[in-house]
């Protein structure tokens, strides 16, 4: 007998196909041992004024970050602060504080250790010798590297939004998904929890590197979902590219740059796709799932075939539905691959 699932395991797998006599015999024999108990009598839970009376923070810092990212603390203490603050870390970061109306501006340096409030529309600039730290309400912080220019943007109540015009920031956010946003010239980084580095160069091209949790890169309806250990690029005019793990096979970065940002007639596209597919590991299902949305029908069929070989689609998800781009089928396949459960993000996005 082969050591990998084959078609004649269908009955064992989901009771389709011809019933296997041995499996059917064991099912009938063992069914009397099935659970037939009753629910326990539950003690009353302590709930006061609609909020829980006690909760515990895990000991590990990383676990605590994940708890906060899952929203428990945020639900207890909703962040209603619309203002930001900046602290000088080194050198003298410059703050341009625009009053309402935008006609009066004044620039002021922020000394090391000094903390200043930032209003909506304010700009923060660091030179080659300065660094700063932004406090984002009560949900986290953003480290601002040298030679970086950021703006504080208007946002809906309970949300926080900034722009990274150029340079590098490191965000560490403890909040549910869709609370913290960073605009770049080519895409919006949507925090799904919790830590990442985002760089934007002078042309407006961006690169995000996620170190904890997830980030979504969005532009004009196009989305990329980037987990910890992965990177994603974005370019003006194209929006977010295809994410890949940092330990992806050699050549993935260059190949994806061709597939994501070159013209449809670019002769390098065929070779780029060949490289991606021929060297893809099970882990690279992240990349292949995103590639299902792009390219010619033939390209997408090849991506489907390779992804199905690495991570078979769940029952009910057909090739036709995937190649038609049906969201329900794509979401089901994503959830079954085991990269991350998007239903949690969708829950928060609805809110």
């Amino acid at each position: 007998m082969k050591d990998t699932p084959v078609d004649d395991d269908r009955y064992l797998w989901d009771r389709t196909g011809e019933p296997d006599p041995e499996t059917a015999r064991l099912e009938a024999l063992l069914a009397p041992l099935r659970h037939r108990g009753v629910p326990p009598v539950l003690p009353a839970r302590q709930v006061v004024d609609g909020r829980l009376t006690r909760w515990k923070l895990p000991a590990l810092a990383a676990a605590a970050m994940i708890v906060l990212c899952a929203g428990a603390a945020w639900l207890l203490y909703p962040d209603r602060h619309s203002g930001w603050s900046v602290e000088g870390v080194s050198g003298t970061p410059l703050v341009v504080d625009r009053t309402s109306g935008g006609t009066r501006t004044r620039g002021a340096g922020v000394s090391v250790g000094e903390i200043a409030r930032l209003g909506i529309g304010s700009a923060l600039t660091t030179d080659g010798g300065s660094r700063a730290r932004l406090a984002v309400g009560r949900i986290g912080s953003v480290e601002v590297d040298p030679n970086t220019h950021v703006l504080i943007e208007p946002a809906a109540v309970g949300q926080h939004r900034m722009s990274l015009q150029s340079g590098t920031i490191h965000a560490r956010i403890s909040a549910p998904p869709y609370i913290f946003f960073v605009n770049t010239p080519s895409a919006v980084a949507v925090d799904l929890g919790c830590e990442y580095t985002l760089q934007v160069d002078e042309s407006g091209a961006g690169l995000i590197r996620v170190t904890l949790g997830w980030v979504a890169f969005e532009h004009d309806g196009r989305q990329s979902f980037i987990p910890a250990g992965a990177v994603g690029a974005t370019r003006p005019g194209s929006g977010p590219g295809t994410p890949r793990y940092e330990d992806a096979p050699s050549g993935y970065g260059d190949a994806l740059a061709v597939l994501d940002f070159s013209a449809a007639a670019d002769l390098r596209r065929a070779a780029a796709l060949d490289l991606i597919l021929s060297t893809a590991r099970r882990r690279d299902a992240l990349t292949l799932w995103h590639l299902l949305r792009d390219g010619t029908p033939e390209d997408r069929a090849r991506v489907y075939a390779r992804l199905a070989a690495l991570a078979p689609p769940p029952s009910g998800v057909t090739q036709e539905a995937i190649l038609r781009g049906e969201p329900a089928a794509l979401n089901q396949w994503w959830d079954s691959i085991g990269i991350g459960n998007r239903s949690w993000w969708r829950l928060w996005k609805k809110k």
Partner: protein
Amino acid sequence: MTITMFPAGQALEDARLVGEARRGDERAFARLYERYARIIHGVLLARAPGADVEDLVQDVFLSAWKRLDALRDPAAFGGWLAMIARHRAADFRRRAVESVELPADLRAPDRTASLSEAHAVLDVIRTLPEAYRETLVLRLVEGFTGPEIADRIGLTPASVRVNLHRGMKLLRDKLAR
């Protein structure tokens, strides 16, 4: 008692029910019990003597009710609950080893021949590697399909399918001896 079969992909519903249960809604928790009681029974049955499993199922759900605040991702309730069950089974086994040895002449419970055979097969399943025995019990005893098992305990369908295939191969070999 009516057992309700849920379609795959209920993580969103679980998150909602957990939220309501956290606020003290026992009916919401009862829905979670309906969805997961057989799963937890299967997880425990793969590890603990059959006579004790129903009590252990109650212990697991009581523990979960009291510890709902500690669940980081409400949508992952099933996987979290299965983890509690495995820990509970491990605790039970440790205490069972420390307990007093039963008299050798104690009469075995009165069983029909088929029920005796069922328990004998279950004993063989319990000798299999842990990943295989749990999946096989959920499939053959509790009656879940592979996709339902994956959906409820947080494994990928591919992992569950491989566990079922390999586990069944080993079980057949052992039963044939």
